């Protein structure tokens, strides 16, 4: 058992906790750098849009938040699958650490979308497939947090939450392809892996902001994971040693 594959070492909270602590400042710094660069490009360099004028600039928050809201859910579902299949302690903690950030991103996506929709489309909200499926995503996040908080036994909470996450994962392709599959008020995607229908500086501003959101999400998720770890593992030797050391 001594020479197990190295990757498993990081699945142990005792190893993960100090490592995450060392990584957090780097992700925070990267988030600040990417954020400043993205905002500079987006707000000052990128040109005015031919039909939406200056109002389109909310895209630099709206699109990164929307991407992040979908991606975080996929990561949580991945951890849920790992947790259910391999019974690892860490996976439930990771999913739980990501949930509030995912919910925040879904909320930001809906909120900035409403602020954008009113002046451009003429309405804050419309029940089209894109907007409705994103709202369902927000409810999935809130539902997951409520469900895991409502069950006292941590292992059972993780299992129930994991099941909810896995069932809800069908919603992600629905959100992404909704504008292709149905008539929606929301326009189609401007950017995918192979093409973009945006001016180059606009696109770069958006990608930098997306990187900023990534780094921010990783940093806060790691912070939250550390707190959850200490709380759940407070009866173990490593946590006791750590807490005793910090108290002194």
């Amino acid at each position, binding site marked *: 058992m001594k020479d197990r594959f190295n990757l498993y070492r990081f699945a142990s909270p005792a190893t993960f906790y100090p490592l995450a602590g060392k990584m957090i400042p780097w992700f925070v710094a990267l988030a600040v750098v990417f954020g400043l660069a993205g905002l500079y490009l987006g707000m000052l360099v990128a*040109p*005015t*849009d*031919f*039909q*939406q004028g200056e109002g*389109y600039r909310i*895209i630099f928050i709206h699109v990164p938040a929307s991407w992040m809201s979908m991606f975080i859910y996929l990561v949580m579902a991945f951890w849920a*699958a790992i947790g*259910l*299949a*391999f019974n690892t302690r860490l996976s439930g903690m990771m999913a739980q650490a990501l949930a509030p950030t995912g919910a925040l991103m879904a909320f930001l996506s809906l909120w900035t979308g409403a602020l954008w929709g009113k*002046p*451009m*489309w*003429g*309405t804050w909200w*419309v*029940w*089209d*497939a894109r907007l409705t499926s994103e709202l369902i995503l927000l409810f999935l996040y809130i539902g997951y947090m409520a469900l895991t908080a409502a069950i006292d036994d941590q292992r059972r909470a993780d299992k129930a939450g994991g099941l909810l996450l*896995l*069932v809800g*994962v*069908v919603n992600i392709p*629905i959100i992404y392809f909704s504008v292709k*599959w*149905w*008539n*929606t*008020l929301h*326009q*189609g*995607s*401007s950017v995918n892996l192979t093409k973009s*229908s*945006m*001016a180059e500086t*606009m696109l770069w501003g958006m990608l930098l902001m997306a990187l900023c959101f990534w780094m921010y999400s990783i940093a806060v998720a790691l912070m939250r994971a550390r707190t959850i770890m200490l709380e759940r593992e407070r009866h173990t030797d490593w946590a006791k040693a750590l807490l005793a050391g910090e108290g002194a």
Partner: protein
Amino acid sequence: MKSRHKKLALIGGALAVIGIIAALVLNALNSNIALYISPTDVAAGKAPQGKVFRIGGLVKEGSLQRQADGVTIAFVVTDTAKDIAVHYKGILPDLFKEGKGVVAQGKMTAEGSFTASEVLAKHDENYMPPEAAKAVDDAQKAATKHVSPSSVSQPKASY
């Protein structure tokens, strides 16, 4: 090790089943999920009779008429195959323009026109500076202008 793989396969299978169920349900609800129907659908009798629904398409070029009061508006929604005349009283969104996308909610009248209670603008996914938009526009106009039998045979360098 074996039970882990079994569990993983079980999760994969369950996900596939959920995916298929979702696809079937969404397929069955297809017409309810669509936000609007096109003028062609209306012409084919797919519009609900005497009920509020939404139509969507492009505002036909040259069809927009404003009454003197400024809020009574008439225009034509087209999907380039069929047209529908729309009457509306109210404020239009800023992006409402001839040749651009529109989604209108309302009812069909007995005369076959559409009385809207709400008009929304649907814009496309292109973002570019005005100069670029103008260049694209000019290029398109030039392209349509030069498509004639005489110009096709001419070498490009001549103009």
